[in-house]
């Protein structure tokens, strides 16, 4: 018998959060982990399979190849050229032919000797392999945004908790000092009570008319489309450009919300919550195959009255990056390579011993590997990434419906809006499912 009292789905999950996800008082993560090269016990070596070998997939694989306690043993892609190049790179690195190449991720995930996967597929191909990998007992380094729709993000976050897996999202800005410094300043009240947050992201663009044609022979296009809606192939469809199509990505807004939106949440300590009201507008192309909003401006209201504006940079004066504004007019702004504040003297301040210290990361990939060994949460677990991505998903729905939406971040449901609710999930083509 249990003495925990009545349990509903949410409290059940919240209790799961408590398992191994408590906040350590001391944020120290070593730059190197178990042992040194040459005396590494096999059980301390993390075997990795890489799924999705395009731009980010290659970058992540390089990072793992560079760690002393990892072994990349398998690669997977539906593009034979990407797959061949990835395998060759791994084999060259280890000076052997041992890396196995897979065209179907299910074969890779069926292996018993893989500890973790690196997942860098297009957004519509995140949830299915991620959940399957975690059901198979693997840890995941997954690209941002974590999900293609809000329900998939919830499914991934739940799968991580329920399976006791480690997840790191590619929201690597949390591992960079200027972002940490900015968030520590905000968290420690250096600009007073925050009243407004501005998140500036890149502007999108439409695409010219395209010529549909057969997919190139190296690309298994049917598999590439996978669970998403089917559209005919054209050169502007797949590699890289999937980002600008709502069936496969979410435009510049979703591509970046897992960076600057994620930092906005980190600064506020909002890793387990979300807005309560969302409204805004976006310009959706009326021609061509890229249908994601090119310009956008939406407002998220959080409990306590804090407003977060998400817009393409320059739209109504929103500056690229993340800016927190305090009630006294003081502000902190951060972007890649930039950190600014008003007053500037704030930049000389640091967190004292009795204040909030955010994790000093040894590097985003390294931090993931350490967490795999200690079984402690990473900087960006799936729940955190899901909440960051939710900003974008909710903004997208608000822009597409043209209505002010009211959201319950605890139950993750809209209030009195069945039309908007139906946009939280995306049905999958057979045979795919979560």
């Amino acid at each position, binding site marked *: 018998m*249990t003495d925990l009292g009545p349990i509903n789905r949410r409290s059940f999950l919240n209790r799961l959060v408590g398992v*191994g996800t408590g906040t350590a008082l001391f944020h120290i993560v070593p730059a190197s982990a178990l042992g040194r090269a040459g005396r590494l016990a096999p059980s301390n070596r993390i075997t990795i399979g890489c799924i999705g070998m395009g731009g980010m997939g290659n970058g992540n694989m390089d990072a793992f190849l560079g760690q002393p306690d990892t072994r990349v043993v398998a690669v997977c892609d539906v593009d034979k050229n990407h797959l061949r190049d990835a395998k060759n790179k791994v084999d060259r690195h280890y000076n052997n032919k041992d890396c196995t190449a897979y065209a179907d991720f299910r074969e890779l995930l069926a292996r018993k000797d893989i500890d973790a996967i690196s997942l860098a597929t297009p957004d519509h191909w995140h949830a299915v392999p991620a959940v399957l990998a975690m059901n198979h007992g693997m840890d995941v380094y997954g690209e941002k945004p974590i999900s293609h729709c809000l329900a998939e993000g919830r499914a991934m976050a739940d799968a991580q908790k329920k399976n006791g897996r480690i997840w790191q999202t590619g929201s690597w800005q949390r591992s960079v000092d200027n972002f940490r410094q900015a968030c520590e300043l905000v968290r420690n009240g250096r600009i007073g009570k925050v009243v407004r947050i501005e998140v500036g992201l890149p502007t999108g663009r439409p695409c010219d008319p395209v010529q549909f044609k057969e997919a190139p022979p190296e690309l298994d296009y049917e598999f590439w489309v996978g669970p998403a*809606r089917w559209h005919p192939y054209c050169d502007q469809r797949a590699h890289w450009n999937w980002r600008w199509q709502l069936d496969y990505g979410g435009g510049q807004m979703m591509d970046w919300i897992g960076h600057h939106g994620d930092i906005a949440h980190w600064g506020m300590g909002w890793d387990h919550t979300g807005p309560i009201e969302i409204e805004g507008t976006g310009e959706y192309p009326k021609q061509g195959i890229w249908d994601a909003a090119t310009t956008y401006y939406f407002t998220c209201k959080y409990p306590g009255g804090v407003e977060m504006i998400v817009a393409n940079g320059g739209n109504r004066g929103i500056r690229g990056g993340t800016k927190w504004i305090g009630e006294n007019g003081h502000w902190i702004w951060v972007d890649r390579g930039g950190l600014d504040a008003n007053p500037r003297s704030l930049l000389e301040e640091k967190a004292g011993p009795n204040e909030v210290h955010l994790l000093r990361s040894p590097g985003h990939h390294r931090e993931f590997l350490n967490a795999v060994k200690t079984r402690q949460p990473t900087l960006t677990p799936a729940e955190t990434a899901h909440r960051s991505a939710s900003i974008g998903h909710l903004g997208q729905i608000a822009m597409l419906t043209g209505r002010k939406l009211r959201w319950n971040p605890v139950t993750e449901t809209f209030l009195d809006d069945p039309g908007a609710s139906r946009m939280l999930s995306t049905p999958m083509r057979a045979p795919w499912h979560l």
Partner: protein
Amino acid sequence: MKRTLFPLITLVGWLTGTACAQEDPFARLKTYDFQQRQVVEELRVEVQKSLAEPTNRARLEDGLIAVLRDPTATFAGKQEACHLLRMLGAERSVAVLIGLLGDERTADIARYGLESSPSPTVAKSLMTALKTARGKRAVGIINTLGNRGAADAAPALVPLVTHPDRMIADAAVVALGKIGTPSAIAVLRATEGRPLLVGQALLRAGDRLAAGGKPVQAAELYAFQAKRGRESAVRVAALRRLASVDPKQALAIGQNALTASDERVAATAGNVVATVADRATVRKSVPAWRKLPPVALMPLLAGLTARREAAALPLAESALTAENELLRVTAVQALATLGGAKAVPTLVTVAATGQGETKQAARVALVQLPGADADAAILRTAKTGEKSARLALLGILAERGTGEDVALLTASVADADETIVTEALKAVERHRVPMENGVLLRTLTDTSSETVREAAQSTLVANARLVPGTEDALIAALEPAAPPVKAILLGALARIGGDRGLTELSKAVGSSDADVKTAAITGLAETWGDARPLPLLLATAKTDAGKTYRIQALRGYFRLLGQEERMPPAERVAKVKDGIAAAERPEEKQQALGILRETRVPEAMELANAALDDPALFDVAADTALYLAAEQKKGDATLPAVKGPATLAALNKIAQKATDDTVKGQARKLLGS
């Protein structure tokens, strides 16, 4: 679904899309071509409006249903119609959508509308359709039934668990797990083979029970899988879930699993036990847990630390000496969190004498250790501890930066031990601690140690960015200072780079004391960062009595000129010319020619051309002239070639006089000969 007529689709689409721009949107949707999105956008907006104001809804629904019923409508149009019907949640569309399930080409898009439809007839219709469906069509229907949690569908799915088509059989297992009724669970429990798939389906059924207010039944299901699951991933997932609904049972199973040979199971057991073990169990178990392998001990210790379980402190102390570095780091974190101020002596020892990441972890722990007790313990050790401990704590005090920390650092700067003083100064500089200038100046002026003096100089320079009046304090200290001290103060002023410092340096250039004069010229020539001293340096290069000073000043003159990118090119060339005129040796003239390379104007070429007549400068001048005469790439920009009579003259000279054939060839090529 095979689609081959892509060019035709595109052509027809564009033509019809344009021609039909004013027609009924549903007629246009029937010819939608995947890229003339105007009609899709219009209908999307209409659908959303109708959700807020339902008057238009029936018309929209009827129009979309008509698209689906039209055999001539494009696949693209039908796909969008299904999508829009899904948005509408239209009940009247169920029949036509069910009809589309029968065709492999439209089965998936039909489910877009059906899966989230609120209509109570959907599940029954899906089950009817399932009877005749095959392959992926059947899988899709099964998936939708599972996603809808259709309890009534369980009997229809049960026989499919053993279907010869593996895809269908697996889909049925997953769907039964999602449905999670007692009969579904019973079937799954009796299913042999596919242990991972079936195990996960059972766990999912357990989740449904737990969320539905049946924790006891859920716990029974989880415990069964945690103990007897044939796949480690299932055992792990079951144990995690069990901790949420039955902590006592999870503790018992978890304790046993801590020593499991399967590392995933052992690690999860560590994680779970840390969460559910009560204090008495922790106290009693510590001796046994000390012997656990790192794979279980790390999550166990980290988990106990996260929940601030003080009874785990002995476990942390013993893990401090572990061979595994990451475990030692975990132990340091545990020690600091659970021990607080009492852990300070041990943490200081590790910070002073430890190695690698363990040492660094102890440092960070001491920096972040909160509370007045911790403050006092750290200060006490920093005052009275062994020298190694005091040294280790200097940087930590600087990072903590409380008032008392800074006071102790200030005292350390005046310590009798030179090593302590140097490290204290470095810590203050590294961690940007604002410090009283008087203390730093006293250290600088009173010490006989060159090392301390240099450290004090660096710290004063850093202090200038933090403490207003630092430059003034340095200047005030100049007058009474002995020449060696004055020299180092001038060096600091040169590094700070303020207006008043420049005045003092300029005065010192005329000093009769060699140390002071050398410091001033060195400061301006080798340290100063902008063009303000150019006139003084040129004058010194021309008129100073000492040749060494003249050369040093001129080299500094050219250094500053070379880094001054904002100066107009003509002015820059004129200044280079002045400098060349003052130069006594070829080395400085060569330095000047190097600056001309980045000044792409005809006047620069004239200087280079003139220098070609001096054999000592020929090679460098030729290199400069060839660089100027050719177009250059710099980043994304293209720098144009410098043209004109001087260029022609220079290239001809190089073509005639160069001894290096490559250089000669480059000149001829640029001449076009």
